[in-house]
């Protein structure tokens, strides 16, 4: 068989073409970050919003539908990306010119990793709420989304952890009261276990939830110590943290934590198990308020695979005094999520309009509040309980309202002070102690080393 290219010129041309192609490939690969975006119209256009939350697309579409009543000419497309895939998806998307216009940010690691791709929204907040804008938004939410003086995202809602939720039907059925101490907790779990009912479940394979439990234990041992250590004002290898890890280990050894907790994910494993009545208690925070309602509870039980879902009432409870020191284990929290405007967006003005409406308008915040998924950040906005239907209003209305009122006074951060390396070290410490591969002291020492290394890395 003969090949048609016979002359050297043709061959050289082809080789040159190949080289040019390669160079072009390289240039294309290297030129992804050159665009700086443009403003566009503030009242029209199409914007793409990417986020891991709202985890329920219908909720996001409700927000968009309410927004479109005020701004009918701005089309918002919501793309849900699972939290476990979020970092993998966002890094290349934000570095390219084809990423989202608006994206979710969470205090801590996400702000550090993706905040540099966002516009500074300080002037937008000032424009919407005036020069004293900070006083009109939940400060704990604003602080977590601010990095080096830059407001990387406008907070949409706050979330608070450090509480448990329990299935009131199961507690009533066996004549039990929510535990207040560690020994109470063990006793309650023994009773449930003797009746073949799961007591407490946690997805200990997922870092954030382990961190919540550890921080709650630490707050029972010495309130505020965890936050001091997070700020670098106290050590992670101190006796307080060693005791925290010892109590954590005790939860596994004493039968409070469910069997196989180290292999379980909080979502979907534990969430589904609790909502289908297999466990009586679960470590969840303010975002779980939504499941106190008839609609969300029914929908979630169905989503967990149960036909003919029958909702049951759930109530929040304070984390038990596991240290036995009489301390109240205070809750902690920060912005559940904020919405950032991408610097490379070609519709920055429309994107800012949407973000401002969601964060600073009463209408936007009311829609957020009424879903009970996240706590509104704009002062003066609260869920409208005339329109929200609890599973058992007589039993739930009072305690849930009290719970929501208490959240306003929470001032300890949850993720805002931590970076991904330290969070990863929490998971390693929690799992190594629970599995017995490290003592609480050894794990605490490793934790301090990780924090030191992360500090040195970020200098």
């Amino acid at each position, binding site marked *: 068989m003969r090949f048609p290219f016979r002359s050297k010129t043709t061959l050289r041309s*082809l080789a040159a073409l190949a080289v040019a192609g390669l160079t072009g490939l390289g240039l294309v690969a290297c030129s992804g970050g050159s665009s700086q975006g443009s403003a566009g119209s503030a009242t029209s256009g199409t914007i793409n919003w990417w986020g891991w939350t709202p985890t329920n697309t219908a909720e996001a579409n409700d927000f968009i539908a309410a927004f479109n009543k005020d701004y009918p000419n701005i089309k918002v497309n919501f793309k849900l990306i699972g939290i476990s895939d979020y970092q993998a998806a966002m890094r290349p998307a934000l570095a390219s010119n084809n990423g989202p216009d608006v994206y979710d940010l969470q205090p801590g690691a996400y702000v550090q990793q993706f905040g540099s791709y966002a516009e500074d929204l300080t002037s937008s907040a000032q424009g919407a709420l005036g020069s004293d804008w900070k006083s009109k938004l939940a400060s704990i939410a604003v602080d977590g989304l601010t990095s080096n003086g830059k407001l990387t995202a406008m907070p949409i809602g706050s979330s608070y952890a450090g509480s448990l939720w329990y299935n009131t039907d199961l507690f009533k059925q066996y004549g039990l009261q929510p535990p207040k101490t560690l020994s109470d907790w063990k006793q309650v779990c023994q009773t449930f276990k003797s009746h073949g009912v799961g007591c407490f479940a946690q997805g200990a394979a997922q870092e954030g939830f382990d961190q919540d439990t550890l921080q709650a234990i630490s707050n029972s041992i010495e309130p505020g110590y965890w936050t001091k250590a997070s700020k670098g004002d106290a050590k992670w290898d101190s006796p307080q943290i060693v005791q925290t890890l010892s109590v954590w280990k005790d939860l596994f050894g004493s039968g409070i934590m469910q*069997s*196989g907790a*180290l292999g379980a994910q909080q979502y979907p494993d534990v969430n589904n198990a609790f909502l289908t009545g297999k466990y009586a208690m679960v470590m969840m925070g303010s975002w779980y308020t939504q499941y106190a309602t008839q609609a969300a509870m029914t929908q979630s039980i169905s989503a967990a695979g149960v036909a003919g879902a029958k909702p049951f009432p759930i109530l929040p409870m304070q984390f038990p005094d596991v240290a036995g020191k009489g301390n109240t284990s205070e809750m902690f929290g920060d912005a559940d999520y904020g919405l950032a405007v991408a610097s490379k967006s070609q519709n920055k003005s429309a994107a800012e309009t949407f973000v401002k409406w969601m964060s600073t308008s009463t209408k936007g915040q009311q829609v957020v509040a009424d879903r009970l998924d996240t706590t509104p950040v704009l002062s003066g906005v609260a869920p409208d309980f005339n329109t929200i239907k609890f599973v058992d209003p007589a039993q739930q209305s009072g305690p849930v309202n009290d719970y929501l009122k208490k959240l306003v006074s929470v001032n300890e951060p949850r993720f805002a002070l931590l970076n991904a390396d330290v969070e990863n070290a929490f998971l390693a410490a929690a799992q190594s102690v629970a599995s017995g591969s490290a003592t609480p002291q050894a794990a605490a020492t490793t934790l301090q080393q990780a924090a030191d290394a992360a500090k040195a890395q970020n200098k």
Partner: protein
Amino acid sequence: MTVSAQERLTRAAGYPSRPRGRRLQASGLPWILPALVLGVGLIYYCIGYTVYISTLNWDGASPDPLSVGFRNYSNIFSDPVFWKSIEHTVAFFVTTFVLQTALGVVFAVIMHSRIRLAVVYKVIIFVPVVLAPAIMAPVFRQVYAANGQFNWVLSHLGLGFLAQPWIGQTSTSLAVIIAITIWQWTGLTFVLYYAAMSQIDQSLLEAARIDGAGNIRVLWSIIWPNLRGTTLSLAILSAIGALKTFDVPWLVTVAGPSNSTQFLGTYIYQMTIQLAHVGYGAALSIILLVIALVMAIILQVAARERTGRP
């Protein structure tokens, strides 16, 4: 200058008059050009770029990465998680290769024994190969959970004392990953051995039978030596597969608990994507590449020595 008659004929026929070797070079280049562009552009360029990144302290996004020379490499060698992942890879390779080979040969021998419904059995054995790990992972998470079906089966067999949280403890999680992998890939091993056995000269088997060899003797002295080439190919595939392992440990156990199912692939992902240590992840990738190359070369050399080929 004179031109020979032969050369004139050659030119008239449109063939170039250059020596044969040069002619092949010239006409061959355009043929390999697309592959060259793809190979150099997409693979070797990326490898080179990864080597460069491995010398940086970089989060993959910031415009001013810090050059750290070979510090990422020296840090890796003192990283206990890296050594854990190497241990897991070796244990994974040895166990999966030995068990898959044993099962593959046994299934292939049985299927060559003219049993009834052989086609049905072949399909059953091969089906796991075509199922995506992403689809099967949630199933295995449920099966091996503390209150999962595996423990249910154990308790109904009177072996309830063996029930345990298989993926929720460090002592058994790696065994679960190995079991899932064997379940998934034994079908491929079986198919390759089945095909290789079809190529064995029947007269050899008949001669062995006439000499009085029993089933075990035939299997060990006639069939197994004739499968050597397939076994070596499977060893190379298993070794590279073990080094690349990512999907099953990530989807079933998220490389845990406590790094007990950590592999190089999962660790690279954690470092690069979740923790944004892109330089460190790149250095891990280069080490993975070197290990894969060394292992492939060793197995190839071993194969040539065994077969006596140069």
